[in-house]
């Protein structure tokens, strides 16, 4: 409870305040305040990310409604199996991430590091598949703005411009998502190092909690991207 009504709040002039916790930043009064600030901060940040991707989703949804045929053809050009594999990998990585946070809370440093490393490996696997996909599209001459030359079997009668627009969305939205993944892996690497040094433990786990929330959010964005991009129109 941080509302601290005068009568019932913590006495901030007690000796505990004079000898602060080593992790307490000087502008906060208590560790609890610091932790709650961090949690609220990451939730507000995630809200901005929702609006950020949300604008893109809105644009995509309108264009798909207008150019359904072209978007359907474009979607069929994507490898559904790759998409499914990536989804499964990310879901697994969210599980290992949750286990990492749990390990931090229960104070087991070894498990924390193990689960963090697993999450990073799964994230890297996701990115590996994604970049393989991009490479494949490059070989197939389907990258808008660079070498977009679809064959007529690929187009199946849909206007080339609409298929190209779909692929623009594909590359941009998955690329933006991949950028967030790369940043996430960077953050988790830092967390792993901090974990190895013992700086994350049962008393100081707000960093790992915040990282966990970020990772789960990036996962959720993919959960929306996968059906929107890969599963247009069934087969």
């Amino acid at each position, binding site marked *: 409870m941080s509302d601290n009504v005068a009568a019932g709040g913590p006495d901030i002039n007690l000796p505990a305040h004079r000898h602060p916790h080593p992790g307490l930043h000087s502008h906060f009064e208590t560790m609890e305040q610091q932790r709650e600030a961090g949690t609220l901060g990451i939730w507000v940040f995630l809200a901005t990310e929702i609006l950020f991707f949300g604008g893109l989703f809105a644009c995509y949804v309108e264009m798909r409604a*207008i*150019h*359904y*045929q*072209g978007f359907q053809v474009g979607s069929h050009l994507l490898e559904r199996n790759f998409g499914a594999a990536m989804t499964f990998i990310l879901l697994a990585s969210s599980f290992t991430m949750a286990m990492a946070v749990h390990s931090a809370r229960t104070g087991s440093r070894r498990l924390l590091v193990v689960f963090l490393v697993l999450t990073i490996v799964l994230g890297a696997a996701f990115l590996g598949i994604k970049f393989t996909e991009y490479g494949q599209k490059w070989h197939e001459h389907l990258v808008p703005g660079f070498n977009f030359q679809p064959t007529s079997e690929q187009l199946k*009668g*849909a*206007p080339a411009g*609409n298929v190209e627009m779909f692929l623009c969305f594909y590359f941009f939205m998955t690329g933006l998502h991949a950028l967030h993944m790369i940043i996430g892996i960077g953050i988790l690497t830092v967390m792993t190092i901090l974990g190895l040094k013992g700086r994350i433990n049962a008393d100081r786990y707000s960093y790992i909690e915040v990282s966990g929330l970020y990772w789960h959010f990036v996962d959720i964005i993919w959960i929306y991207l996968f059906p929107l991009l890969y599963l247009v129109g069934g087969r």
Partner: protein
Amino acid sequence: MTPSLSGILLQGGFNLRPASASTMAPDVDHLYFILTGISIFFSVLIFGLILYFMIKYRKRSDAIPPPTRMSIPLEVTWIVIPVLICAFLFVRASAVFVHYQDPPSGSLEIFVVGKQWMWHIQHSEGPREINQLHIPIGVPIKLTMTSQDVIHDFFVPAFRQKMDVVPGRYTTEWFQATQLGTYHFFCSQYCGTSHSGMIGWVTVMKPEDYAGWLRSNATPESSAVAGRRLFSQFGCEGCHAPDGAGKGPSLTGIFGKTAALENGETRTVDEGFIRQMIVNPASLPVSNYPQIMPTFSGQLDEEQIMQLVAYIKSLGGTEGSK
């Protein structure tokens, strides 16, 4: 050299509003007067109270005045009264807008194409103008407009009317002139370098003078006849045979009908529908017909498309589309 201020003021007269030259103008001006009256009232009230309090309650000593008692009834009053005023304004203004929303049936139709940085006007009888619009007085005029490049806007201050002119679709505006004369029209959506040069004159004439103007500016083809020529030149009659024996529907009488699309939607066959069908047929899969119509995007310019539209309309059909 900056001319003298008094010289300018004496020269141009001092108007507060443009000529009121359409059926809509007096209604819009009326609303404007009501709004101005309300604004003056509240501005004077607030400025007046501020000045009065500033003077009457100016600081005379260091004594702190006692607080004023909070008054819920007062708060409620000054929420409810503005709400009532706003509701009143909303209803009045919306009524005027909705009243003038749809052009009356039987409007004289004129096509407008805006492009950087000029206006091409196409009368259905054939005459064309650039940066000029001649119209008869007392007749509702419906402009069907599109842009060949960026968004423009066709604004006639004397008629109190404007509408954006958007590439890729038709927009319409209509007005009925009530006064003879010439009036400015402006482009009023910023469109690049010569945006402020994209202006012209509307000339309102007596109907017999308008007819005379049409005759003296006659062209070999009316829009519909030009459209007929394009219809055959681009091979449309191959699929759209008049007896319906081709792969596509006959277009006789089709204008104004409702088309059912494969995804269950229905659309009215109006000018915009026809344009979209010519330019992007894949986006309008009409039920019961094979989706084989090719796109003519890039092969026909906007004025040619308007001529085709005029031709198809001339094949008969129901009015009443926007």
